[in-house]
């Protein structure tokens, strides 16, 4: 689970992660704790959508306007955040809507940004994503696919960049996710409660220590946190230089076809994940091992399964496939 999250921070283009697991398996805790290690981004100063400085991912209409008027955009550093989408959110709060105060005072229509605007360049976290209302799911799908939030409602016609890392958690007992949304998640992980009593005791011990003295506990982890933060920022810097050569392409396609996964999205995601994995490791060369250790994350939710099939990937099969190259 940690790895899936880190890969996504290293390369937000991977397309998010779906975390499946029963209650009390620290799904939400892991996602919320990410705030500690998220690297800062360089954004356009004063932009309500925090457009990436340098035009990566496209500009919002306001920045476009500035550019058209010949005004210079200035950079600012903004921390990457975890933005939560509550299940009870209404559509207009998610997509954004008409700024009513403004309309009433000046008679001018203006867009009031919603959660998707906040999520631009950030992590969008949906707890219990399988219980999200259909119309909200449709909204998310649309933005996640295009990287742009198109709003056409209540007399507002507006669009702005909405590139975010979608992180969803769900308890599979509560129901499945629609196949459309499932496919959009770049990675998926199944988390299970630990059965080892020693480890469980360790979890309890740590939690008690945290409750007794949160600040002190954070302090004691600061070094470790700092190390992870550094390795993530380093990976982000390294990523553009990580090579993705013919070997990688061969490995990726042979794995995806071996496991009968359709569509180019799986191929592209596996390639990206393998690269991000190499970058996190501080290497600028992708190895077979990178494909091996990310394949399950990418493929397990895309494989066609019959009922009663075990979830997950056949490790031996994967090994055979990689060896044969």
């Amino acid at each position: 689970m940690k790895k899936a999250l880190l890969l996504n921070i290293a390369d937000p283009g991977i397309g998010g992660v779906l975390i499946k697991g029963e209650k009390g398996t620290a799904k939400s805790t892991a996602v919320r704790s990410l705030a500690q290690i998220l690297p800062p981004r360089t954004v356009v100063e004063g932009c309500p959508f925090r457009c990436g400085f340098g035009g990566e991912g496209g500009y919002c209409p306001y920045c476009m306007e500035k550019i058209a008027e010949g005004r210079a955009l200035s950079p600012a550093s903004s921390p990457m955040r975890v933005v939560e989408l509550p299940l009870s959110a209404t559509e207009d709060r998610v997509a954004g809507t008409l700024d009513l105060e403004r309309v009433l005072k000046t008679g001018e229509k203006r867009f009031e940004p919603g959660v998707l605007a906040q999520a631009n360049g950030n992590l969008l976290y949906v707890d219990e994503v399988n219980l999200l209302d259909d119309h909200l799911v449709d909204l998310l799908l649309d933005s996640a696919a295009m990287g742009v939030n198109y709003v056409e409602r209540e007399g507002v016609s507006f669009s702005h960049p909405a590139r975010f890392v979608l992180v969803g958690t769900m308890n599979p007992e509560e129901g499945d996710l629609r196949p459309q949304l499932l496919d959009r998640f770049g990675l998926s992980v199944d988390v299970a409660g630990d059965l080892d009593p020693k480890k469980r005791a360790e979890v309890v011990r740590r939690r008690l220590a945290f409750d007794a003295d949160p600040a002190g506990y954070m302090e004691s982890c600061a070094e470790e946190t700092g190390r992870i933060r550094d390795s993530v920022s380093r990976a982000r810097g390294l990523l553009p230089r990580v090579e993705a050569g013919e070997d990688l392409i061969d490995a990726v396609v042979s794995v995806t076809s071996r496991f009968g996964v359709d569509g180019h999205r799986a191929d592209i995601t596996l390639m990206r994940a393998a690269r991000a994995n190499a970058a996190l490791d501080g290497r600028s060369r992708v190895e077979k091992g990178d494909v091996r250790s990310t394949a399950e994350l990418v493929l397990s939710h895309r494989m066609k399964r019959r009922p009663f099939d075990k979830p997950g990937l056949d490790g031996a099969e994967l090994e055979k496939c990689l060896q044969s190259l």
Partner: protein
Amino acid sequence: MPAEPVTGGYPFSAVVGAGAAKSAIRCALVNPAIKAVLIRGGGGTGKSTIARAIAGVSSRRIVNCPPGVTEEQLFGGIDIEKALRDGRAEASEGLLERCGGGVMVIDDANLMDPATLASVFDCVATGEARIERGAVSARIPCDFLLVATVRPGEPDLSPHMLDRFDLCAYMEEPGEGERKEALRRGRDFSADPKGFAERHGREEAEEAALIERASRILPAATISDGLASIISELCQRTGAAGCRGDLAMARCSMALAALSGRDEVTKRDVEEAAALCLAHRRGDAPPPPPPDRGGGDGGEEDDDGPPPSGGDEPGESGREPSGEEADRPPPPEGEALPDIEEIMFEIGRQFRVIDYIGAAGERARRTKARKGRRAMAESADGTGRRAGHRIPAGRARDVAFDATIIAAAPHQRDRDRGGLAVKIEEGDLREKIRERRCGCTILFLVDASGSLGARRRMAAVKGAVHSMLRDSYVRRDRVGLMAFRRDSAELVLPPTRSVEYGLRKLEELPTGGRTPLGAALEKAHGYMSSNPGRRQGERLFIVLVTDGRANAPLAEGADATEEARVIAEGLASRGIGWIVVDAGLSYPHFPDAEILAERLRASYFRLEDLDADGLADNVRMVLGA
């Protein structure tokens, strides 16, 4: 208000594979009479990419239409700014108008409200948008190309809607080589979109020039009477009702001819056009199963293929189907009329390929099962999609400000505004109507006693619950299972949308013992009435699988069967829909289950007549009604 942001698109010519989709789009760009193109294919096969890539090869602007669009946004409503400033009611520009002469892209068109989609098609057909809203009445010309994408697996578009798409292209399953190439290009594109586009600049320009040249040829393109009548016959044979198919085929084959630089339509053009125009129009029958599965459904669909010809076509020796599509030799030109059987055969072969693509990885679903629309229920808790506005009955809680302001706008000049820009009075207030999709909760109440021919019956019942569970996560239904045996009914599976969880419980279902029918009816009804986790607007159904006979009465010494009937009568029409599936033997047949169904005012089916999927379908029909 500022316009849309610029996003560098993927070049049209750089899309790997997708021959049919490219061809359909080219035709539509060449022939303006082709107004709607549908692209179907699984997730991540590049449907949206190719639709948006049109920007690279055509000067027409591309407008995105989200599936959740409101009618007001499509057609334009009142211009709020004008209304507030000048007190005039004027139509504002809607999406359709903005699209003028351009291309409208709708992703996942099957998720769109069918009524909204229908009105889009209305504009496509008439070439103008008619706006009749409050104080505004206007006709706005809107001429555009509609490109929609749909993925299989979700509820499909209705056959009626499908027919309104002139062309329909299926995304082919890419081969390994293609996958690698696509991956390479995807990598290069994301690393450097601009440089990538420049590298493909020449191909892109050639593509645009090809379309441009074809558009100039098109007005001169002709189709011989012989081929025209062949087109009509093909449409008839494939069961394409109405003449939209004929027209689309004629238009498409003319565009194809023009694209090859000819002004005369040939047999090949017709063949290619058939794949694009007829595959989605074939009859009402379900798609045949993929070739590797010996399913029984869709048997009549085989008529689509050619009759097994005895090789009596004159002059055809080397035209045996070689199984795979090899490059076919160009057909001899300038002959006598082409043989219709032969074209039929060619089309049949293409359809088989299409069906295989369409069915690969997706379960074949019956058209019948789709008939019920997903029910929408008004939602009062402020969540759900906005469906309009109205004058509130009492105090307005969820105020629709735009509508309120519009209502107030014409009066602003006469009102004392007291320094405010807008003076809103009580009577101007409008509230939002919100609705949300609501599923059903379906409880299977199954006789698990020994009196039912036990195992064989249970297999059919399990099959049905199984198939409904599989459906449920798509349809937002929750399915539960209660079994009765010995002395009581037991809730085996609380209503769930989880397939795996449900299936596990289903496997373990124990059987045998006496039949406490009356107790079961009461318990099931009681459970559903107090259904935990029930959502607003959700509809409740109980599917009772029984032979209608009981032998374990509630009251000591009573006639159990008669008692169950009395209980049934008392439970009928109390907010829950009942469906009775008669699991009794067909011979000798006893009418007990029928009587019970009558008392419950339930729909009645016989297990005999239904296989597992059939049972699920029939339950669906009742739910949809």
